[in-house]
Structures are given as structure tokens and as C-alpha cells.
């Protein structure tokens, strides 16, 4: 499998979409984004969403711990680390957000984080 195909496969896995299949119920984007829309992202955008999706997973985990144990210093430090990680995404994110399709998919994808806050 080529690197490009592998990257695409990872992207689809993150979105909860398997090749040729429809969106599954557990997909965080289900109900927000049409399958065909997701596939409109270019390879660079897809690769970005894979990385950002992983960051969101960790961010959600830290949010859940924060809600349960607000005084947990280790979790606060982790949150601080994750914030620094988020800053690294900004140059790419700012560029991609100029694309209306990406912007729409991105906003739908962060809903799952917002719901946890």
C-alpha cells in the first residue's frame, strides 16, 4: 500500500468511515457531515485532520478528568502541554480554514469536543 493510500485509510478510520461503507453510528461526525463532503478534502487536509483528530481525543480525555478532578495538577499540566500542541496546528489550520469545505468539516468535527466542555 502506498504512503498516500495509507494516509487516506488512516483519515477514514479517524472519521469512522471504512472504504466503501457509510458512516457508522459511533463516528463523531455522524449527523454533522455528509460522507461525500468528507471525501472532498485534499490529501494534505485529510492528513491534518488525522493529526488534529488524535489531539482532540487527548483533549477530550483531559477535559473529562478536569471535570471529575478539577484540582488534579498532573492533568492541568497535561492540558497545558496539549494547549502548546494546539498552537503548532495554527499555521496549517488558518490556511485550510480559507477553504469553505474544510471549514465546514472542521467545525463539525470539533463538536464532539465542545459537547464535553
Amino acid at each position, binding site marked *: 500500500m502506498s504512503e498516500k493510500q495509507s494516509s487516506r485509510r488512516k483519515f477514514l478510520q479517524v472519521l469512522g468511515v471504512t472504504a466503501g461503507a457509510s458512516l457508522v453510528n459511533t463516528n463523531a461526525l455522524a449527523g454533522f457531515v455528509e460522507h461525500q463532503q468528507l471525501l472532498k478534502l485534499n490529501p494534505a487536509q485529510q492528513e491534518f485532520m488525522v493529526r488534529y483528530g488524535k489531539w482532540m481525543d487527548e*483533549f477530550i480525555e*483531559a*477535559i473529562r478528568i*478536569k471535570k471529575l478532578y*478539577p484540582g488534579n*495538577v498532573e492533568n*492541568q*499540566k497535561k*492540558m*497545558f502541554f*496539549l*494547549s*502548546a500542541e*494546539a*498552537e503548532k496546528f*495554527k499555521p496549517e*489550520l*488558518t490556511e485550510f*480554514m480559507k477553504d469553505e469545505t474544510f471549514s465546514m468539516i*472542521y*467545525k463539525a468535527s*470539533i463538536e464532539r*469536543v*465542545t459537547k*464535553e*466542555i
Partner: protein
Amino acid sequence: MQEEENTRRSFLKAGLITGAAALAAGVVGCNSDTKTKGALTGKKVPLLDSAGNLIYVDEVHMPVHTNFAGISDEESRKGIPGKKFVMVIDLAKCDGCGKCTKACNKMHYLPPEKEWITVKELQDSPKAAPYFFVKPCFHCDDPPCTKVCPVDATFKREDGIVAIDNNRCIGCRFCMAACPYSVRLFNWDEPVKPNIVEVNAAPENAFQSKKGCVEKCDFCSHMSRKNELPACVTGCPMDAIYFGDENEDAVTNKSGETVVLSQMLEDKAAYRFMEELGTKPRVYYLPPYNRQYPKPEMKNINSESQS
């Protein structure tokens, strides 16, 4: 030479008309408060009326804007040049009256249930008397909140203030999750709009609340722009809150007592909240040593926690 003079004259003329038009727009277009009280000053101001005629009105009728200082987006994102704002809260002086909160709410047209600056009673151990902990936004120099914002709606200004542009905010609340101090609030409902000239959710406005957006203490940046102290500082009857410019190494309280910042921090063993996180807050605390108000009632926090 003559051509140069003509050009200058044309420029001045154009400036007069443009300026007058702007003033006229202010009078005609805005629902501003006007100085209707008091006698006429006799000083006339040229204006263009809606028909384009040059008219003169007494300056007593000129509009007084109670909000929106006309600061551009660029200026409000950059901050006030040459400044580095800092706050010091003397916990030995705070008696927990909550007038800082009330003054803040009044300044920002916030309902009582919303607090940008909170006052909580704390007791560190059963043998230590309680004290009151005042908590605004810390305007961190390494703020996690701004880093997670995907649209740069919240940002760090050159003058140290962490501001929010609610015209950009998409309401994702990432900043609320990232803030370790929980000082950010979300507007679930439409806020009650005050009866003021202009309502704009951009930074450096007294009223910034917007449905579906985040808000917090902004160090009263619109007051700092005018070289005035934030509402919490002027509202504190105990002179417990100092505010100033780190570049000038000076902070001032409500009574106008100005002290050397670096000396105060050193002499009074100042500390910052949750320093270990590395957020580098711009708010310092002076420990509640030698309290200048009646000692709060001692509480047995051990028995309270067991019950």
C-alpha cells in the same frame, strides 16, 4: 509655491468638510446622549446636516459617546503601545465585601449571576484564619486559552492583556477547557443589551457579551486606553487592588497610592496563583499577613469536611 499653497488649502478644506460630515453623522446617525443640560457655550461647531448643508451648532449639543471609543480592530488586537499591564491584590486588605465584583458588573453591564471577578473565602488549614481570595482573569504571559482557539478569537496583546473578539468567536469553548483558572464564562442566552449608543462585541468595549460566545475579565482595557484604572480597582473600598504598568514599575490603588511594583513584590513576598503550571499570570498576590480588617470567624474545616 502658489500651487503648493493651493494644494494645502484644498487639503484643509477637504479636511473641514470631512470632519464636519463625521460630526454630523455622529449627531444625526447615533442615538447618543447629548449635553442637553447647562447653558449654551457660544462656541459653534461646523457640521453637515443630512441635506449636505454646512450648519453650525453650539458645542453643548455635540454627542457624548458612552461606549465604543472608536478603536480599530487592529489597534484593539495590538494593545496599548509601550504598556505591560499588571495587577497586585493585597489579600491582607481584602475583607470580602465583593464591591470589586459589583463595580465590574456595573462597568460591563453584567447581570448579578455573572462574575468576571470572584471573591471566595478560603481557609488553608484548621489553625489558620480564613481569608478572601479575589480572582480575575490572570492575563497569563503564556496563556493556554489563546493557543487552543482555532480562530484566534482570543489572543494575547502586546500590553499583556488577554482579550476576546466575540465577532470572531465560534463558541467552541476550547478556551474554557484550557484555562486552568476557570475564569471564562459562556453566554448560553442572549445577554440583556444595555441602553447605550453602540453595542459591539469587539475588544475594548465595556459591553462585549454575545450569545454563543465566551467572555471574561479584560482588565478594563477601554479604561486603560484613557489612562484610567479598572472598575474593580476603583470599586475596592479597602484599597486592596493595585493596577499599573510593569514597564513603569509602578502600580496604583483606588486612593491613588502609587508604589514601586518590584519593591512591593519583593518586600511583601508576592506570589502568583498556581505558579507551577508555567502560565506566568500577570496578577500577583500579597499574602494575607497582618490583616487590616476584623479577623474572619475561625472554622474547623476538618469537621466540616467530615460531616
